[in-house]
């Protein structure tokens, strides 16, 4: 399990990467009592990929935080 931190709206979020079966997910902890957010990459028709929350209901956060996760992963390589 890999863990790292990202900055989001003046908060430092703790992100942990997991494999659930064959699926790669990221669990985001806010540290302020807000429920953890779980995000993953998914595919739209036409093979365009985007971030989404699991379960449904937090799409905007998933897209914003997902992009920050992607940037952090690229930065760490």
């Amino acid at each position, binding site marked *: *399990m*890999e863990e790292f931190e990202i900055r989001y709206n003046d908060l430092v979020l703790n992100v*942990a*990467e*997991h*494999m*659930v*079966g*064959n*699926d*790669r*997910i990221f*669990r985001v902890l806010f540290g302020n009592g807000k429920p953890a957010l*779980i995000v*993953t*990459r*998914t*595919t*739209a*028709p036409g093979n365009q*990929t*985007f971030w*989404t*929350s*699991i*379960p*449904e*209901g*937090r*799409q905007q956060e*998933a897209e914003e935080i997902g992009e920050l996760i*992607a940037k952090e*992963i690229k930065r760490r390589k």
Partner: protein
Amino acid sequence: MCYYNRQKVTRSEYIRLKQLEKAILNYDFLSRDLQVGFDYGLNAVLQRKYGVEDFDIVQMEWGFIPPYWKNREEVKKYREGFKDNQGKWVQYITLNATAEEMLLPRKMYREAALKRRCLVLSTGFFEWRHVFPPNKRTGLPTKTAVKYPYYISVKGQDYFYMAGIWQEWTDQDTGEIVKTVSVVTTEANELMTEVHNSKKRMPTILNEELAYEWMFGDLSEERITEIGKTKFPAKEMEACSIAKDFREKLEPAEPYTYEDLPAIELSL
């Protein structure tokens, strides 16, 4: 068209995300590490409803556990292997059941193959191709293979069916009940002979007609073996090389070209 989080997604993605929801409910985030390779994780499986021609989509642990393994400790021991009293190495990799052998007497898969056949949903799978580059000095093939990962899928299909057999297992220490599954394998077709060239095996992929028969049919042992040995046509499959660090990538199945990797040549 399917929608998840009010966003359009493909049908296969919708199924995957809904399955992921269920898996996460039972996921212990505190103790599980990042898993790769032989992960014995959860897979989406079509399981026949008892007595009717209908099925549920359920999650099963990939890696068949026979009922006589007593607890998780014993499961771990058999999966990871150990030396027995005579110093002989004992290990059971139960991710796959060999179609040609699963019905043989005393095989752990026999009863499941007779009574509990299922379909494992897949969007694609990974295998390694072994290439022996020429030695720079002698020109002869080197003895150590360079391994290149490939992603294999079925052309034009978001997902497809692999033949499976399942077993419910109870941990005799904790009472935990889990459904476990093994994917049936067969001799490789022309494409998989080139890709999975170390073992020349492939999962048994079934078209819709055979998938229906596999799950609902009242089959003789000969027919079970016959369907289990189905070699899905190579011309209906595609394989592309992917990055060696695909496990760490956001899109593990993204094609990756290697300059030193000879192309797969098929005469189909």
